[in-house]
């Protein structure tokens, strides 16, 4: 299912969360809580046994692709790609959100760094990913937010397999953490709607490697339909316990040493579970 054992993935998740907390604390800006909710989802994708890429040749034609549509989660993408060997992690820590850095506040497309798409404004990246999937025979995975699905043009992607063309090599990963910037998100019957419009719909615990890995295997087995995987997650997962899953922390990095320590304490508590 995965290229390495789940215990290894779990260690990687811990290290990446630690880097995320450190990175956002030091830089004083960035979307920590969204990034934390996606750690297992992103790691599961790039460590799935079928998922091919080459950190020394980011533009490799035969690579499988992971698009980030909710672009504010880019710190996660930056940390994971350092872990995968696209660049040293110090490059990220030294230049994050600084002028002309490859590590902008929202992703700037750079295949060399493993960044498939420029993003930021919501509801656009998932259409880029879907169009891309129609134009390649490689696997195309795309991470989208639940708040992002309040945008009509995100919702309209649900019609695409039905009235445009099915892209069976496409998998949409919905980060269903039920929080957006300033509101709680309830997408109601979205999974049922997606199924009616010819998606293979799967619903999983978005923090379980086992569940994610199995869902991804099932996604690539369906050669007729694209897959819509509802990943139930907690915003801020593995960070400060009193903030996780609560409104009011979107794009807010740890403020002061006390909050920083609360994030680290939450990280350790999550590790022992």
């Amino acid at each position, binding site marked *: 299912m995965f290229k390495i054992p789940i215990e290894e993935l779990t260690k990687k998740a811990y290290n990446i969360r630690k880097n995320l907390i450190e990175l956002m604390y030091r830089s004083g800006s960035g979307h920590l809580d969204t990034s934390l909710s996606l750690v297992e989802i992103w790691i599961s994708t790039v460590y799935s046994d079928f998922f091919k890429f080459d950190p020394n040749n980011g533009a490799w034609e035969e690579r499988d692709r992971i698009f980030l549509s909710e672009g504010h989660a880019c710190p996660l993408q930056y940390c994971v790609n350092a872990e995968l060997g696209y660049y040293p992690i110090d490059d990220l820590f030294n230049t994050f959100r600084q002028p002309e850095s490859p590590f902008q506040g929202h992703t700037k*497309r750079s295949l060399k760094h493993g960044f*498939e798409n420029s993003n930021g*404004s919501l509801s656009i990246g998932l*259409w880029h990913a*879907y169009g891309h999937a129609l*134009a390649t025979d490689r696997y195309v995975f795309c991470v989208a937010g639940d708040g992002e699905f309040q945008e009509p043009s995100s919702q*309209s992607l649900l019609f695409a397999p039905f009235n*445009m*063309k099915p892209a069976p090599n496409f998998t949409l990963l919905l980060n269903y953490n039920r929080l957006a910037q300033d509101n709680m998100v309830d997408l109601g019957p979205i999974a049922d709607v997606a199924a009616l419009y010819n998606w293979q719909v799967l619903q999983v615990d978005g923090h379980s490697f086992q569940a994610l890995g199995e869902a991804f295997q099932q996604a690539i087995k369906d050669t007729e339909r694209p897959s819509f995987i509802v990943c139930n997650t907690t915003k801020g997962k593995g960070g400060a316990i009193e903030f996780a899953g609560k409104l009011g922390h979107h794009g807010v990095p740890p403020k002061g040493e006390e909050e920083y320590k609360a994030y680290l304490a939450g990280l350790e508590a999550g590790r022992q579970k």
Partner: protein
Amino acid sequence: METYGNESLREAFGKALIDAGKIWNNLVVLDAGTKNSTYSQKFQEVFPDRFYTPGINEPGMVGAATGMAMAGKRVVACDMSVFLHHAYAQIRAAARQGSDMHMIIAATHTGVAVGPDGGSAHDLTDLARMRLVAGFNVITPWDGRQIRSVLQVILEEKGLYYVRLNRPKVPLFLPEPAPFELGKAYKLSEGERVTIIAVGDKVYNALIASEELGKGFADVIGVSTLEPLDSDTIIASAKKTGKVITVEDHLYIGGLFEAVAGVLVQHHPTPMRRIALDRIFTTSGDPDELAEIYGVNTAAIVRMCKEFVG
């Protein structure tokens, strides 16, 4: 002036796409529910597997088109111009991917030339909108023949291109193959007293006006690339004649007039006049009738030249 019949810019584009499809087997065409108006349907008839539409969904169409271009396809996304307002965020996002891809947006119903569908359908701000998106080349072909040359060039060279087309049949007046070099403005007639600069099918009106004004009266410059604009050709002519009139079927804001003014005010301030629309919404009518009402026809150019030169 010799002409070779009439053809709408949109129909010429649709036909040229078929030939391009035979040359480039990675060319794909998209439309957002207007394929019989944009003539992209012609491409679909010949290459059904290389034609995509999400239905009446401009953001989806431009988004998917961008993703295909990122995957290495040569992409042409077609729509009636005014509907591309729906996809402005997606157009900006396309440009933010960088210009190392083949991405063409073709907008077919522009200006009051759209005619009876009325103010709702007359896109009078597309040039302004597209000039604001960094990275996009803005192409304004003059006749059906030039469109073939435009497509050849922009399908060859990677980049982001916006092509402004329109609805009614207009004269074919260029030789074949028609000239087109990206970023080059063309001096089409020599004169001493005034410079007339035009875009799109208004170049034909400018040339007819120049004939009526008599030999040696007007420098006529045809602009088929509004962005990036050929400043040298414009400045040189302004230095010679000392008076410049711009001609466009577009608001005076953000299009040719302000582009030229922007160049001249910085390098060679020159008195200018404009043939363009005021900041208004327009009415239904026959295209020729509307061109007369809003003062964007040959007669208006002749009148303005005489008044301006004195």
